[in-house]
């Protein structure tokens, strides 16, 4: 029972992070390898707002979430917009460079020590007993709920929202969308903002649950296989992929070898790339035309 709970919590973490990869890839075909670092930045932003609004933890989280949205939009406006029309690979490498830059910057501003935002906000973590003898920490439960709410919100937004429809249109055919009056730059900026926001939300909740240091970026990278297994352009796929990767990881660590934790997601990734590169729910890339 505890194992099942662990799987669900890990899947929720991966799902919440993976939806950021999917959003950006779906809309602009750019793989954001700085997502782990942006997520870490979001968590550190919470640390910053926590010292501003001590005692009002909802305000602090709200302010940090707002700031992370702003960060995402700014990253697009000042960096990725310049890469529009360049080779896709150049854009991906730019995100890698951004990730390295952010890692350095975060240590410079907040130091490399382990930090505890929950402590700073003055809220205590406690365990909730579940039926079946399993236990889950309060923030982990919050994380599962946040993941569910985020997915519901984004799916509804993409389906019915005016900007959501524009985002889908830009993802399907940018040229046609632009000709029909969709402001591509605004749509891309929104995608970056939303992606950073959801990633940061995951980062904040993980940090509240178990503290915050430089290793968080690796969690972000490990969520990437989840996105790819499900299909890089499918939100539903990201959800399923997260469940698969999380289940495999938890079970293998439990029954085989804890050292495997670092490689399991990537092993699944290789298997998926061999069998079905476009993922479970992804759309197959178009054929070459000359």
């Amino acid at each position: 029972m505890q194992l099942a709970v662990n799987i669900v919590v890990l899947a929720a973490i991966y799902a919440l992070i993976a939806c950021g990869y999917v959003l950006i890839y779906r809309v602009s075909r750019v793989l954001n390898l700085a997502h782990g670092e942006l997520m870490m930045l979001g968590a550190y932003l919470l640390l910053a707002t926590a010292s501003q609004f001590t005692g009002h933890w909802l305000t602090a989280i709200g302010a940090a979430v707002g700031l992370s949205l702003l960060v995402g939009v700014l990253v697009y406006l000042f960096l990725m917009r310049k890469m529009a029309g360049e080779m896709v690979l150049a854009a991906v490498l730019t995100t890698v460079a951004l990730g390295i830059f952010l890692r350095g910057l975060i240590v410079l501003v907040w130091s490399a020590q382990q930090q505890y935002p929950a402590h700073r906000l003055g809220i205590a973590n406690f365990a909730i007993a579940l039926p079946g003898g399993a236990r889950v920490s309060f923030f982990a439960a919050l994380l599962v709920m946040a993941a569910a709410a985020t997915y519901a919100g984004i799916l509804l937004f993409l389906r019915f929202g005016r900007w959501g429809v524009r985002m889908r249109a830009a993802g399907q055919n940018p040229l046609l969308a632009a000709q029909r009056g969709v402001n591509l730059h605004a749509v891309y900026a929104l995608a970056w903002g939303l992606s950073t926001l959801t990633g940061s939300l995951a980062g904040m909740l993980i940090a509240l649950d178990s503290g915050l240091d430089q290793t968080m970026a690796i969690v972000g990278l490990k969520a990437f296989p989840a996105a790819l297994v499900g299909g890089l352009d499918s939100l539903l796929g990201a959800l399923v992929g997260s469940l698969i990767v999380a289940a495999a990881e938890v079970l293998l660590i439990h029954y085989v070898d804890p050292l495997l934790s670092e490689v399991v997601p990537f092993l699944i990734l290789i298997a998926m790339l061999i069998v079905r590169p476009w993922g479970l729910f992804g759309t197959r890339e178009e054929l070459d035309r000359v």
Partner: protein
Amino acid sequence: MSRRPRASGYFRTHYAQDLALIETRAEWTALTALLIALAGLPFVASPFLLDLAAQVLLAGIGALALMLLTGYAGQVSLGHAGLLAAGAFTVGIAVKEFQAPIWVTLPSAALVGAGLGVLFGLPSLRLRGLYLAVSTLALHFLVVYLGAEYETRRGFSTGIVVDPPTIAGKAISDGRAWYFILLAAVAATLLLCLNLLRSKTDRAWVAIRTNETVAAALGIGVAAHKLLAFVISSAVTAVAGALFAYYRGFVSVEAFSLFLTIQYVAMIIIGGMGSLLGALLGAIFVTLFPYLIEAAVRMLPGAQGYAGMLFAVNYAAFGAVMMLFLVFEPLGLVGIWRRVQTYFLLWPFKHRGVGGRR
């Protein structure tokens, strides 16, 4: 390799001259001067500078190999650190388990590299661009995991100590001797690349890079040439890793992080894609960059306060420089070099004539 004629006219009278790598007397003079300078360096440089030079040379081999694969054949790889690790661990294991001498370990490292090259290259037959990069990234984690597993299983949890190699009965541990060995290795790699890049293989690679479907339609064996690119690049990279293991005298998985891969990718980007000179310039720039930053930080007032933060400053500055190159100078250092060259060649004019010979 630049294909524009370097002499002021066409003076070739023998077929041998068509094959010559060096055409003009000015080039001979420049090459001789460069060789004398390189040979003289270890006799004037301090041990610290000599170590820097050795690091640059090691990075140069790896960068040349990656340039072949990414810059010419157009196959993106994020598994470079994994291949370096494979070479280094081959040496470590061969020395620890079998006391193998260097003339056995280096070829076996090349063989392991070639084998891994096939493995890394297999996904490229189905995948392209982004997906290929991701699959090589995953293989990197796999290789590093196997290395870590070997370390813990055999009880070398902090790393494997590799004794200095013996050549002709003498142990090579002197910095000066290493400098010349590495210089020879870079020269050999460079010659290999130069000759590959004027062969049928290079033309096939460029065709595949430009458009795979067209290349296949022209009768080029796309799969074979892609695998060949991976095999050659990986074998050279593994040898670079093996030399790294001998030079450092120590092998540990910590040295082969994802960051190392990114550094090599940065070398070929900052140097300039599709140019061997670019790979070498990039290797020099990226290797020396942290030391430049350190020197710059020490110049600032209150340097003591930053001493513990140096690695963070390095990270941030490295990321920033890489972003600046990608956004503002996609052609890299070679692009800048060519522009300077053109400026002096054309002076006092600004632009090349339109429609004339380029």
